[in-house]
């Protein structure tokens, strides 16, 4: 039996449910919208939809998407790292499974329903608003629903587990003897974390960043439910072009641009990370031959 046969189901899946739809989107993006009720025609192919999609009016939406995604991913990282470290290293093993299960509890409910839940929580007449006003922390009703802040809260909530899980796995794999060795060499707790645990957990950090950043950039549910006009993201724009404008060609071109935008941004940060890592490594390098 040939070895590749093991990968066949995965390849078939990939081909039918990923490669084919994306190929279709790319193909449509060169088409045009025929008449009021047509959605897409491809008898004449051109780059015109890309010209339209690069409409300067849409720049604020691209900027918004990038800002929300970067801040959201960063917040997930800042919240996720200490939590995952605590869970993997500090918590007693018997509680670990339970706590990890609790991290996954939100996934038991549909993404859409969870986001609508935030709509209710953040409403000016909602209980959070009432509670904060009762505590005299707020003088007027909470005014963050339908703003960028609401989207920011929503995306951190929705994507945090995707950050915690790979981080947990990475920290969990760390050999505790390495930390002990670090302590034996008089490294402080912070120095041990910074110089031993975190660098070794780097693959988990990168996986978490990608798992959060990429779907977040394309998210449209959170933005359309919580964002109002100020929290619009590209995903909303693409959905509008398909649903309301019935312009699949333009929607496809915008979607392709979004894909490129995500790849470009991820590559850009990857490059920065690589440069920083190279600098740190070269400066920290200990020349063992010299010591001999």
């Amino acid at each position, binding site marked *: 039996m040939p070895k590749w046969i093991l990968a066949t189901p995965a390849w078939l899946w990939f081909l039918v449910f990923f490669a084919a739809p994306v190929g279709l989107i790319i193909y449509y993006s060169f088409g045009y919208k025929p008449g*009021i009720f047509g959605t897409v025609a491809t008898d004449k192919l051109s780059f015109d939809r890309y010209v339209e999609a690069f409409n300067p009016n849409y720049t604020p939406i691209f900027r918004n998407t990038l800002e929300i995604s970067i801040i959201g991913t960063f917040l997930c990282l800042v919240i996720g790292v200490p939590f995952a470290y605590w869970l993997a290293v500090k918590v007693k093993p018997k509680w670990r499974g339970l706590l990890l299960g609790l991290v996954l509890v939100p996934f038991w409910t549909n993404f859409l329903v969870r986001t609508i839940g935030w709509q209710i929580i953040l409403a000016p007449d909602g209980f959070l608003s009432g509670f904060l006003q009762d505590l005299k922390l707020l003088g007027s009703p909470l005014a963050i629903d339908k703003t960028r802040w609401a989207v920011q809260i929503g995306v951190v909530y929705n994507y945090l587990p995707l950050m915690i899980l790979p981080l947990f796995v990475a920290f969990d794999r760390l050999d505790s003897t390495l930390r002990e060795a670090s302590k034996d060499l008089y490294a402080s707790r912070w120095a041990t974390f910074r110089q031993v645990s975190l660098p070794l957990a780097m693959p988990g950090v990168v996986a978490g960043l990608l798992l959060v950043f990429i779907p977040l950039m394309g998210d449209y549910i959170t933005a359309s439910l919580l964002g109002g*006009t100020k929290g619009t993201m590209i995903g909303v724009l693409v959905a509008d072009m398909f649903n309301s404008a019935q312009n699949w060609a333009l929607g496809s071109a915008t979607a392709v641009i979004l894909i490129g935008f995500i790849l470009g941004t991820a590559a850009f940060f990857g490059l920065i990370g690589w440069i920083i890592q190279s600098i740190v490594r070269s400066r920290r390098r200990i020349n063992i031959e010299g010591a001999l």
Partner: protein
Amino acid sequence: MSDQKDVISVLAPHATIKQVSRRAFLAGATATVAGGSLILTGCGEDEAPTTGGTGSSSGPLEDQINMYTWGAYDYPKVMKQFTEEFGPALKLSSYDSNEQMISKLVATKGTSGFDIVVPTGVFIPQMVQAELLEPLDLARIPNFENIAEEYRDQPWDPGNGYSVPKAWGTTGYVYDKTKVTRPMATWQDFFDAAADEASGQTSMLADPNEVIGAYFWANDEDWNTTDTAALDACEDYLIDNIAPHVKAFESYPGTNGIPQGSYYLCQAWNGDGRQGIIDSGTDNWVWVFPGPRSELWMDNWTIPTGAPNPNAAYEWINYNLDPEVSLETLSWVGYHTAVADIEPAAEEAGIERLDMIFFTPEQVATMDAGEVNDSQTRRVEIFNNVKAAAV
């Protein structure tokens, strides 16, 4: 006779109970909402199973109806009654604009699975041309006779070949009088308040024609214009003066936004605004039917091409045109249902906020029906640009 037998053999477990409960309901309702037309209807209903027998002429009723319609457009109680009485369960999906609904029908090419869609009248000719709608057999909708003469046979569907009226209404706005204190009477007042004290707290409908319409209504111009310069001026005004102040484009502020206090000022369809005001439980919200002009729209029951449950769909449409049922729906959705003499019946029944449901002839004279014309693509483009400018 054989027809009747069919009905009974199919609906046997429920039929008898239903007949009784139906009559009991009618009797009860007639007592509370006494009126000549209602008694007449009672007679009509008695006949229905034998002659009208909408289900009987084309086989049994299917067990469900998939309805794609506007948000909060059907009274849950009425839907439940229908299911109890006839069997088919109603499944609902909703849309924000005609464009959205049409795009789904176009995209699925007759396989949408929907049995009912409720387009605004002016969209019907193009939908018919694109073969998105099944012709209606009015013989299967005996209650069509309850529709007032003036709402039948509209220019966009002569002879009601494809549609029967569901409801008609207009577009206005509601505002929170504790936040907006200036006198509010026109669309220009709406824009002025939006750009001032309601800045960042204003919602407009998520429908290209409504947002663009508001500008033309404010300026007392033809809102169906195809004139490029007029549309450009509209785009510039909305992008520069209004978009930055809009908090959200939302077609149903009445469902959540108004009751939750999310806005100070909302462009709204009269029925949705009414639901929001009633649900808010305060008297802070004021409805304005704005001048100098506004819209008149009429939505219509239609059956899309390829509907999997047409018999049940016919039965549902017919059910809704019953004056009793229609009045119940009206009491909740807050739109004129085009049924004859519904206004006196509603007054008699003591339904709240009739000023938001029924309009005087003078008000109606300031309403213009929309049009679907060559500028549609441009209008969608303007709307997208306005939305982008609101970020």
